[in-house]
């Protein structure tokens, strides 16, 4: 082979471009490249011609314009006067949120269903088979619509939670399941929450150290230390101690409520009765804010909350007249208290490092707490159940692919069934499970673009939907949208491939 192709040294002839294997591949590539470039330039020139014919231009200036529409679920600040770019960002975060939540739940559901499908229990195995086949063979869009409708129809309206209604909150009046979503307690951070965080970080470090130590002991002596209990104890005990200690000390401190436009020493109830409207200045998600609101609600007063970032800003806002009630630490110097403000006879507690605010039924809906909207839950459930059915099949296939001899060998060595699963079966099964699992995660992320079917405002609905519709910038909008999905997909697949190459058994 080498001798025949090395022989002709007579110089280059054009016909070699076609007949000589050394040059022919170059020729083919050059032709392909030229064809690609021609095709692309044809597309671009068409686009330019079409745009100018329609009198449109190609620029991304619309991202800075006022969006004008509202979004219900926003992980960052946004209102209708924000820009289209910000709306797109809100959508992107919503997409990422549903993707992460969905992948996590899909994994749990999939692994569970895959294992249960192999169960010796005939009923359970067949129930799982029905689940898997049912979800795999019906379009995901239909599932999204069905689950959304089911959740809307099967859960009570907030109205039913009123006196005389037939619905009630669960878990000690802290969680309400309605057809507008599930309302759960929201955390509020108070004094000393920073200390809690530091304790948590220290515990994590300790856990890491403990696991390393336990591993080392096992390697050296064969003695198995209780890793699980140790981890649990290291995580919980210091946190609990710190929390209780902080609650017992700073949590008991009270602080006065300052109001404007009332006499010194009035009670909160009298103040509320005398005022036209109550505007409370408070730092969002703080325990002071929570306790102030609780005090106001306890008196049965309606109020608006004016968000501020610090006590200083609250004082400034009160001086401008933007709010007429605020709570300041007792240590605040008298000079900085806003002009004309007086302390009420009531006081509030500063609060523990962490407090949870339960949702309460307000005018039309539940207020306070965290609302997991129905659209989010329906989309989350539908995507997870749908993808979970595929993952279940992967898991089942993976477990079946590990030969029975492996289990038997492990048992013969006297390894417990749970350890056999963890140390022998799973590592081998994972090798088969992970690669298709990656593509299922990708599918889930891409399927989240169906969010609009339930009115979940993901990036497809904000940037690729309302924004395009209001501004008429289809080309730019779709380009950005496509780029976002492409980049996300590439990141997920490369991250998972990295993990995959770690899990993969090293082969010859």
């Amino acid at each position: 082979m080498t001798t025949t192709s090395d022989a002709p040294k007579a110089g280059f002839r054009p016909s070699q471009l076609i007949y000589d294997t050394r040059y022919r591949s170059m020729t083919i590539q050059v032709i392909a490249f030229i064809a690609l470039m021609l095709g692309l330039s044809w597309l671009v020139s068409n686009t330019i011609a079409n745009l100018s014919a329609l009198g449109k231009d190609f620029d991304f200036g619309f991202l800075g314009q006022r969006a004008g529409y509202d979004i219900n679920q926003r992980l960052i600040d946004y209102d209708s006067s924000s820009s289209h770019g910000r709306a797109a960002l809100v959508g992107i975060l919503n997409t990422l949120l549903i993707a992460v939540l969905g992948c996590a739940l899909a994994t749990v559901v999939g692994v569970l269903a895959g294992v249960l499908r192999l169960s010796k229990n005939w009923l359970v195995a067949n129930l799982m088979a029905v689940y898997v086949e049912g979800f795999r063979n019906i379009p995901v869009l239909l599932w999204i619509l069905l689950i959304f409708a089911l959740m809307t129809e099967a859960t009570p309206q907030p109205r039913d939670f009123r006196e005389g209604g037939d619905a009630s909150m669960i878990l000690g009046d802290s969680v309400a399941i309605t057809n507008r979503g599930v309302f759960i307690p929201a955390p509020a951070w108070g004094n000393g929450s920073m200390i809690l965080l530091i304790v948590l970080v220290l515990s994590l470090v300790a856990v890491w150290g403990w696991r390393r130590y336990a591993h080392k002991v096992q390697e050296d002596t064969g003695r198995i230390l209780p890793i699980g209990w140790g981890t649990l104890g290291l995580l919980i005990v210091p946190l609990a101690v710190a929390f209780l200690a902080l609650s017992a000390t700073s949590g008991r401190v009270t602080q006065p409520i300052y109001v404007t436009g009332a006499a010194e020493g009035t009670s909160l109830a009298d103040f509320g009765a005398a005022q036209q409207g109550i505007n409370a200045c408070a730092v969002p998600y703080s325990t002071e804010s929570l306790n102030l609101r609780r005090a106001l609600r306890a008196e049965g007063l309606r109020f608006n909350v004016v968000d501020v970032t610090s006590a200083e800003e609250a004082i400034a806002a009160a001086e401008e007249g933007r709010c007429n009630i605020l709570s300041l630490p007792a240590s605040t110097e008298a000079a900085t208290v806003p002009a004309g403000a007086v302390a009420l006879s009531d006081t509030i507690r500063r609060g523990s490092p962490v407090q949870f605010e339960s949702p309460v039924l307000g005018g039309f809906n539940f207020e306070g707490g965290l609302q997991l909207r129905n659209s989010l839950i329906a989309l989350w459930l539908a995507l997870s159940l749908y993808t979970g059915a595929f993952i279940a099949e992967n898991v089942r296939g993976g477990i079946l692919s590990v030969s029975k001899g492996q289990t038997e060998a492990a048992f013969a060595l006297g390894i417990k069934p749970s350890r056999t699963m963890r140390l022998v079966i799973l590592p081998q099964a994972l090798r088969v499970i992970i690669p298709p699992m990656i593509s299922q995660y990708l599918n889930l992320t891409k399927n989240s673009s169906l969010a609009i079917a339930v009115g979940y405002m993901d990036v497809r609905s904000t940037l690729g939907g309302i924004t395009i519709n209001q501004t008429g910038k289809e080309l730019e909008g779709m380009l950005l949208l496509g780029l976002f999905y492409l980049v996300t997909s590439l990141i997920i697949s490369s991250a998972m491939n990295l993990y995959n190459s770690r899990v993969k058994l090293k082969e010859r």
Partner: protein
Amino acid sequence: MSDTHAQTVSYVRETMLPEAEPPVGNRGALLWVRENLFSGWLNILLTLVSLYVIWWALAHTMPWVFRGIWNAGSLSECREIRDATLPEGTSAACWAVLSDRWQQLMFGFYPRELYWRPVLALVIFLAAIAPVLFSHMPRKALWLTAASPFVMFWLLWGGSVWFPVSVALGFALGWAAWRALAPLAGTLIASIVAVALPVVYWLYSAGTLARELDQAMPLSIEYVPSQDFGGFMLSFIIGIAGIILSLPLGILLALGRQSDLFIINKISVGFIEIIRGVPLIVWLFTASLLLNYFLPPGTNFDLMLRVIIMVTLFAAAYIAEVVRGGLAALPKGQYEAADALGLDYWKSMRLIILPQALKISIPGIVNTFIGLFKDTTLVVFIGLLDPIGLSNAIRASTEWNGIYWELFVFIGLLFFICCFSMSRYSLYLEKKLQRGHN
């Protein structure tokens, strides 16, 4: 032996006892129940939970399904019948919407007297893929397979028969050019000409030729515009067209991805990754909103065709990955054997590699088709009337405004039947192929 025992032992059994029946709890149904349902506290718990789930689900749906009302002209009529015949407060399905509108859900607005045409097209499709799926069919039947897309197109849309014929002629032209040129000028030039010639022909003379032929010998059936297509027929057409048209492109992409040629390889990888990285719905919006920007000014063709083009490109990327899996699964010896025989690249692919690789890939292709078929429901977002789109349209009519579950249950059931039978088939193929290799 028995003699010696006769002295020492007082009694020796000389015949086997008949097998005793196992205890009641250890045989028949009871054994099965105990082993499969109640063999431990965990199993008992699981069984009870499953039983409760099944009972709960059936108790909530079955009465509604079986009390259903089949004869009514509108939802309000349904409600009247329900209130008149059933005790107050009971819910009942209004299946009457299906008896009223099932034709629309199946065929869209396709003229009723022409329903035989899509049905016949489906039959032809099934007949045409038989030689591909079942290896014992005569090879000559593959020619029918090649001709079937044109026949199906003609049956579905109708119009003059000369139009599909003149398009098909382009392929024949390309093939003829290749056969004529390949021995003379080499495969490279021959392939370039074989691609370029039909394109030029389609752009400049196919339309004229069809018109001339039509004038010379008119032969046409009633034309049905794309707007009349809808329902499951639309899903099938988009799904099937997507898969058939994407196969050649997908195979080329898979070969490109396996290729050593740097640029070809990178183009293929880029194409596949870009298509697969972006959701189908974005591609559909591209088809609906943007495709007109990319084509020469003034070009305009109907939405359904644009969707089919996009779906084809989309499916091609997935098919390419499936075929790549098939190519990678072939032992290296096959490639080396082909080289050893002195076959050039295309010959070795056509005669040795691809037939084997494609055979392994068929289950994957069927799965891709199932996925694509389910994904055709997304065309509702760009205004095509697929089953879900039609359900919206039906709910917008004054008679059926407010109906919900009945339509979705019906659509879901049909999708399930189609997809489930296809997935069983692909499972069967997989098993058959596995046997073949062991």
